[in-house]
């Protein structure tokens, strides 16, 4: 329990660091064009939003310290101001909330799938070593991990979208349809999600496979695996119960650390497919110089990653009896 609390404290600290980064960056960039742009758009903001933006970016008349505390206060009460250019006048919170479900669906499901599949393949690949496949597959997995997310997306669009016309590759659903919980709409959404999901799957699965394979190989050399053989246990049981269960543990920590990269990849993929999730929004905001929106999204992404890491830490604590007593 203390372990979880300590981690929570660390995450709060990290969030605070991200916030401070957000605060500091516009002020650190020499002759920042950001301020000029914001100053240009002040007119379109409502009075409350104006106050929030002033505190965030240092325009206006307060001194830095009070700006900082106003800023922190605003964030704590979820006041992020309004969008400057993407959807002028609309509250940032609103825009972000609209995008979250799409990303959660795409990235959440695909990541879990990639993790499960990748781990499974890694386990089997380590268990069945020594064949001819074993010398070819790992380098292939390695190459899979270096394919740029966005480029693979483009290639898949070329093949399945442009040349074969099998799958759609723009937006989250056909804009002529009206959203609703009916089969036609949901089916359409899923259709649009296939290519982005597939791209994300292929580019991320390589990492899971390789790290699981590596830890599994090390675990298979352990004495307790040899003991399991000596006891005459069936092969599947040894592979899963003795080897995989132990090999998993360092991978859960690795899962947490790799999340940062998965998020990065998701952003690019959403961009390539014009999939209107959080990542696409972030890049639109960047391209439109919509700084309030951009900052809020950055915080959201950071918070999401932290939550995922916390969850995997809890999972490790549950699965590894050694961490429970010691903390």
């Amino acid at each position, binding site marked *: 329990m203390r372990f979880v609390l300590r981690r929570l404290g660390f995450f709060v600290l990290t969030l605070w660091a991200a916030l401070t980064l957000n605060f500091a960056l516009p002020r650190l960039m020499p002759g920042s064009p*950001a301020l000029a742009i914001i100053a240009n758009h002040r007119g379109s903001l409502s009075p409350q939003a104006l106050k929030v933006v002033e505190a965030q970016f240092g325009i206006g008349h307060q001194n830095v310290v009070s700006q900082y505390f106003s800023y922190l206060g605003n964030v704590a009460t979820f006041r992020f101001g309004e969008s400057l250019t993407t959807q002028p006048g609309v509250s940032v919170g609103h825009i972000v909330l609209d995008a979250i479900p799409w990303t959660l669906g795409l990235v959440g499901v695909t990541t879990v799938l990639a993790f499960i599949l990748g781990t499974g393949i890694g386990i089997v690949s380590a268990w069945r070593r020594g064949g001819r496949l*074993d010398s070819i597959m790992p*380098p292939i997995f390695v190459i899979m991990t270096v*394919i740029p997310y966005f480029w693979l997306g483009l290639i898949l669009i070329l093949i399945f979208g442009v040349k074969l016309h099998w799958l759609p590759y723009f937006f989250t659903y056909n804009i002529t349809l009206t959203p609703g919980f009916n089969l036609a709409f949901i089916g359409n959404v899923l259709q649009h999600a296939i290519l982005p999901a597939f791209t994300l799957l292929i580019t991320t699965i390589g990492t899971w496979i390789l790290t699981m394979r*590596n830890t599994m*190989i090390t675990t298979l050399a352990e004495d307790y695996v040899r003991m399991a053989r000596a006891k005459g246990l069936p092969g599947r049981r040894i592979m899963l119960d003795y080897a995989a269960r132990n090999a998993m543990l360092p991978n859960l920590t690795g899962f947490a650390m790799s999340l940062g990269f998965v*998020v990065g990849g998701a952003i690019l993929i959403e961009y390539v497919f014009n999939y209107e999730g959080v990542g696409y929004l972030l890049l639109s905001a960047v391209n439109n110089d919509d700084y309030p929106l*951009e900052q809020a999204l950055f915080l959201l992404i950071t918070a999401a990653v932290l939550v995922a890491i916390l969850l995997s830490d809890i999972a490790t604590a549950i699965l590894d009896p050694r961490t429970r007593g010691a903390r």
Partner: protein
Amino acid sequence: MATLAPGGSGGPGGPGGPGGAAQSGQPATALTPGGGLMPQAGGISGARSLRRMTRAIRSNGKATVGMALLVLFCLVALFPGVIAHDDPSAEIYGRALAPSARHLLGTTAFGQDIFAQVIYGARPVVLIAIGVGLLATVIAMLVGVAAAYLGGAWDGVLSLFTDVLLVIPAFPLLIVIASYLHGASTAVLIAVVTAVSWSYTARQLRAQALSLRNRDFLEAARVRGERSFYIIVVEIIPTMTSLLVASFLTNALYAVLFSSSLQFIGLGNPNTVSWGTMLYWAENEEAFQTGQALWIIVPGLCIVALGAAFALLNYAFDEIGNPALRPVRSMRGKRVKRAR
């Protein structure tokens, strides 16, 4: 891709190997960091491990391929004019031409020779990769080793700083920083990507330095009266050669991917010729729809190839350091089938 466990030594066990292996019935796995390279005098190990590494590279298929690719791209980056005879930025040719003998890969929507662009585009990417690889490794080493060696409150502060930076998602942070810069040159890209990547390997280096801290040969140096700085530079760092090489490769790899991605979304300087910016323009001009698939395919393949070079070398080093990961030779040739 380096494993997340802070392991990875530079070589297999020495002459004592077979004896130890016979004892436990297991291969002599050097699982302790630097375990395979622990001679008594710390300073010599740097040269010895370098020699071992070159020998190891030649014997490992993946390493050879990786090394060959890397050398190839370095040569292309150094001498682009030798291979491509056109000015990559000159918009003087016919637009969107198909590949021909004159234009090996065709031309862009603006009338530039794609082949020339690909060749000249290698230089910024290789520069960024090597620049970030070296810079990030140096910073990671300084922070990691200092934290491990100084211990106590210093370690706490440095580690906390590293961990926080590590956990904040790298690519979004990169995007945010770049968005305030409005067009990053190569040097700026190096600085920014380094700032975001060094924390990952700093953690590994600190872990290894910690495990080395209590080794006998360091104790001997302390007893001799050597100063901390000397100990760190002359004794500890050479023993960590293998992990430093792994760190360089990892950081270089991420630099290639990160910088290309940034350029692709338009946050680099779109006027430089680089694989990432090529893809940016290609996408802007809807290259697929207009039948200029090569404009997108080739730069992407180059990124994959350069990335693969670093990744394969990294993987090969993992195998070299941890013999358990190497491909298993079958015993079929020598095994007795059925006893009497």
